[in-house]
């Protein structure tokens, strides 16, 4: 039936009245229920909702675990994490993440990306501050007492295994056997050893290649990667002056 063809009949008016009575009945029942038990709202400042165990509030950090790899800063979708200089008591001058919580969207990707589970998600969500500066959490302020549920762990499967149709295994986060690897283009390398100095995990070692430099008569050294230690932070790739390092992804 087309819309223009509809006409109000006498019964329609009575139906409308019945509709009003129906809504009145429904709301009255609701009011009785809300008075007898309690409304579905909560008195926020005094009462708080129970948050689930895997609730992702502001990011926190466990400083003892952090190696300063900067993967959190690379992963952050809002780019609110910055690696700043930090004076550590034992390790001296190091880089540690500083989070601008005002820009944070609480996705928890930083904790997901962290290879050492130093970055954690905390259940804190009351972050109001009187100034914008108060929302920038430096590494010390970012610290949070650690509890077992706070770090983000996940499992993943490889696309290639799915595609080949064989058995699909699931791997835990930071499984050293399957993570990406750094590949060296030996012909470009000038043996500056900057990568080895930069590596936060100590996974690069300058090893002899067996060749000797014809001019200086010294043995040529090239980086060698220890995949068990590597966290794929790509700092070596960034720092390489001749761009001879590249990442080979595991697919």
């Amino acid at each position, binding site marked *: 039936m087309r819309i223009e063809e509809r006409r109000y009949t006498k019964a329609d008016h009575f139906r409308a009245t019945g509709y*009003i009575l129906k*809504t*009145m009945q*429904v*709301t*009255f029942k*609701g*009011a009785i*229920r*809300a*008075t007898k038990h309690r*409304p*579905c*709202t909560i*008195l926020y400042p005094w009462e708080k909702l129970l948050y689930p165990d895997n609730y992702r509030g502001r990011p926190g950090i466990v400083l003892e675990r952090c190696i300063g790899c900067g993967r959190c800063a690379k992963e952050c979708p809002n780019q609110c994490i910055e690696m700043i200089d930090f004076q550590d008591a034992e390790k001296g001058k190091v880089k540690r993440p500083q989070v601008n919580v005002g820009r944070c969207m609480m996705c928890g990707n930083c904790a997901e990306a962290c290879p050492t589970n130093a970055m954690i998600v905390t259940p804190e969500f009351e972050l109001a501050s009187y100034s914008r500066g108060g929302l920038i959490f430096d590494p010390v302020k970012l610290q949070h007492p650690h509890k077992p549920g706070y770090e983000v762990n996940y499992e993943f499967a490889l696309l290639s295994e799915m595609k080949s149709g064989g058995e699909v295994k699931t791997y835990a986060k930071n499984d050293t056997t399957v993570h990406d690897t750094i590949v060296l283009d030996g012909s470009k390398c000038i043996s500056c050893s900057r990568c080895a100095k930069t590596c936060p995990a100590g996974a690069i070692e300058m090893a002899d290649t067996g060749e000797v430099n014809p001019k200086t008569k010294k043995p040529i050294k090239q980086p060698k990667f220890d995949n068990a230690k590597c966290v794929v932070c790509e700092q070596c790739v960034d720092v390489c002056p001749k761009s001879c390092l590249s990442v080979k992804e595991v697919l």
Partner: protein
Amino acid sequence: MSNLYIELTNFTEWLLGLVASILDWTKLGFLSDFGEWLQTAPVVDFVSTLLVVAIFLITAMMFGLCFIWQERKFLGRFMDRRGTQVGFLGFFQNFADGIKVILKEHIVPKDSDHRLFELAIFAYLASTFMLFGCIPFSDNFYVINVNLAVLLGVAIFAFGPFSILIGGWSSNNKFTLIGGMRAAAQLIALEIPLLLCIVSVVVMTGDLSFVGIVAWQEQNIWLIVPLCIGALTFFIAAIGESERIPFDLPEAEAELVEGWATEYGDVRWGLQMASDYFRAYILSGLFTMLFLGGWAGPEFIWAEAWYLAKTFIVFFFFIWVRAATVRIRTDQILKMGWRRLLPMAVINLLIAVALKVAGVF
């Protein structure tokens, strides 16, 4: 309770006597004469009337505030939430809101008609506050007790649409103009059924004063029983007259920012907002007077308490309707006013006349 006027006349006589004796003590001739003049009957009447009006207005406004509080809390429960939280059961939220609007700046739009802009809101608020005086709490607690009290109240109500339309026009804003037009159309459409229902009550009781109407109902029967159609019509028309949901077209927040009061700021807006509730209070008071027997009731509590309890119950139904229904369209409201409520009111009037002619009451 004894009569408010008598009590306050005695008090005023004592007070002015005190003032006169103080003036006499100064031994200055003209001051003694002034003191003697203070004790004459017209001055005493005037001062005692002022006192009565002040006391009554403050009492009525406090109960008006109670109505806002009741609405907020009950509507909260209807909507499955808690309502206001400031102070004792959220009662002081109204005062907080009042202080807030008092502290606001008074802004007049640049291209508005300044004088009419100011005049309209004052006319609206003045008519609301005058209406307070028309509704007595009991046969002892009142401001005016004249033979034409019902008609007086209705006549003051008639100022509403005019001032609303002027206010909406003078703000020089399309939303206010549309809101004003809607308000006037709706109030005119619903006022006639309202008046006819009042007429049916007057036919039954043969009296135009509230005291007479209530006394008649006390002797015979509450008028909601014989005039149930009229009571329903009056109830619906009263909701429309107080511009409440589902008839809040003049102030439809979703369509017109704040209706005809969009351009009003500061305490004028606050009082306009409050006066919506005050008018709802007055109309539920009228309903109580006309159909529920006013302050009539068993004598174990005061008559005023009976009146207020009944009014609160009527207002509860106002809130209930507000919680349950949605806003209706402009053409629907006019159609409803002219085609449904008006015939219902006329039928009700016929019933009243028939009952009177048949000599049932």
